[in-house]
């Protein structure tokens, strides 16, 4: 495990030396958070002023949206989108980083030197998977967790408390499900990067993985928060199972028999 952490730490160190990359990832999550908070706070403001609320309903009706009480509908849509986007963007970021994991080694010319070192192939793959998850996970935890906490404090979100902390289903999905599936996608990305001999191939492969994962995993994590905690735990375990499969596949693909 020491070598796994060594590889992961080196990846994190390289990420830290690329602030533009970290800023890009942070910008995606910050934009989601900013938009969601803006709409939620606006709804809270409208809700607190009867005159504004009446005007809002009237304007919606003029626009063709006849609703008895539109604010909860808007809030539900906002929270649903927030969770879906938070999970899918986190998964996507890790998959993209891991999708370049071994391609990056080939570009740096370091692969032969890793292969002559006493690091096992699974250690190298797992280290790269953890390395890919680390930075996006920190951003997801701070920006995603912070936004969800602020949203949970607003009265307008109370009817949908199960979509936010401290609902147990949300906590399990956020703290276990998201990270577990990001590991799974990172391991799929790593496996793709072993076989990809150039960045373009890696990018297209990762794009496919991200597309499929957004539809399937994003829906399960974000859309099934109303299910009980056990369901979310099973989803998280599923993520860990697929991580093991992905790491195993990447290890088998990463042959010591390489060409320089």
């Amino acid at each position, binding site marked *: 495990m020491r070598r796994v952490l060594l590889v992961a730490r080196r990846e994190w160190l390289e990420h830290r030396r690329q602030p533009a990359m970290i800023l890009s990832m942070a910008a995606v999550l910050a934009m989601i958070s900013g938009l969601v908070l803006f709409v939620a706070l606006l709804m809270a403001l409208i809700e607190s002023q009867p005159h504004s609320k009446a005007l809002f309903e009237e304007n919606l009706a003029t626009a063709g949206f006849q609703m008895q009480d539109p604010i909860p509908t808007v809030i539900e849509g906002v929270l649903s989108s927030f969770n879906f986007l938070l999970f899918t963007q986190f998964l996507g970021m890790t998959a993209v980083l891991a999708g370049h994991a071994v391609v990056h080694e080939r570009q740096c010319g370091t692969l032969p*030197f890793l292969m*002559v070192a006493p690091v096992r192939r699974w250690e190298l793959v797992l280290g790269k998977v953890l390395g890919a998850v680390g930075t996006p996970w920190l951003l997801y935890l701070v920006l995603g967790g912070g936004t969800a906490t602020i949203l949970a404090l607003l009265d307008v979100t109370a009817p949908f408390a199960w979509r936010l902390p401290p609902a147990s289903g949300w906590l399990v999905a956020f703290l276990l499900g998201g990270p577990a599936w990001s590991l799974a996608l990172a391991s799929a990305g790593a496996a793709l990067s072993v076989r990809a001999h150039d960045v373009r191939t890696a990018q297209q492969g990762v794009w496919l993985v991200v597309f499929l994962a957004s539809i399937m995993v994003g829906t399960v994590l974000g859309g099934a928060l109303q299910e009980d905690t056990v369901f979310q735990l099973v989803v998280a375990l599923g993520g860990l199972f697929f991580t093991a499969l992905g790491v195993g596949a990447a290890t088998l693909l990463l042959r010591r028999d390489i060409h320089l």
Partner: protein
Amino acid sequence: MERAAPASVVTARGLGRRVGGRPVLAGVDLDLHPGEVVGLIGPNGGGKSTLLLLLAGLLRPTQGEVRVQGLPATEVARRAQGRVGLLTADPGLYPLLTGRENLRFFGGLYGLDAAEVDRRTGPLLDELHLGAAVDRPVHTGSSGMRQKLSLARALLMDPVVLLLDEPTANLDPVSARTIWQVVRQRADRGLAVVVCTHDLVAAERLCERVLLLAGRVLQETTFPSPRGLPPVGQLFAPYQDALDRQEGP
């Protein structure tokens, strides 16, 4: 009484490699002894780099076998930590990390902590004239600095065999000479070296044996004793002086 020859560090028998059904290398026999420098010369595509990769355990032979200190070459990385040092034309370093961070990372893979890596590489970095460059990001350094760092990494674990693939390609004469100097010194202390090169003068001066490879060993030339470093010509001394003055305080 006749003195017994030292045991071979590397033994290759009937070594061959096919790529896509086409033979790249065939029937190579090699015994490499401690302190011996063996040169591999030949045309591009002649199998020099392939032979080096086979010796490093980075390619599996399709015929024959390679053993390093009795172990199959492909097992050496896992079972005989750091017994084989490798240096290729591409230095193979992480460009965003400093030289020292690179050395510490690779040392860590061999179980060395940062202090031990620094202790082991300190004198070597001085020998290689790396100085403060080791604490700068690798991508800001010259080709010579990267190649010297790569040599420091190759020697980090005190290997018994050093495999060099075009180690001085694209280097200025001063950097190239520094690398040859360190390699020769280590060989004099018992390190076995195999070096692929197109520099025939360097091969002739540095090697005890030179194999001409073109898919197989066409010719083997033996030199009874080392003849020192490659000659540098009249331009070298003023060139080095000028560089030293420029680098001054």
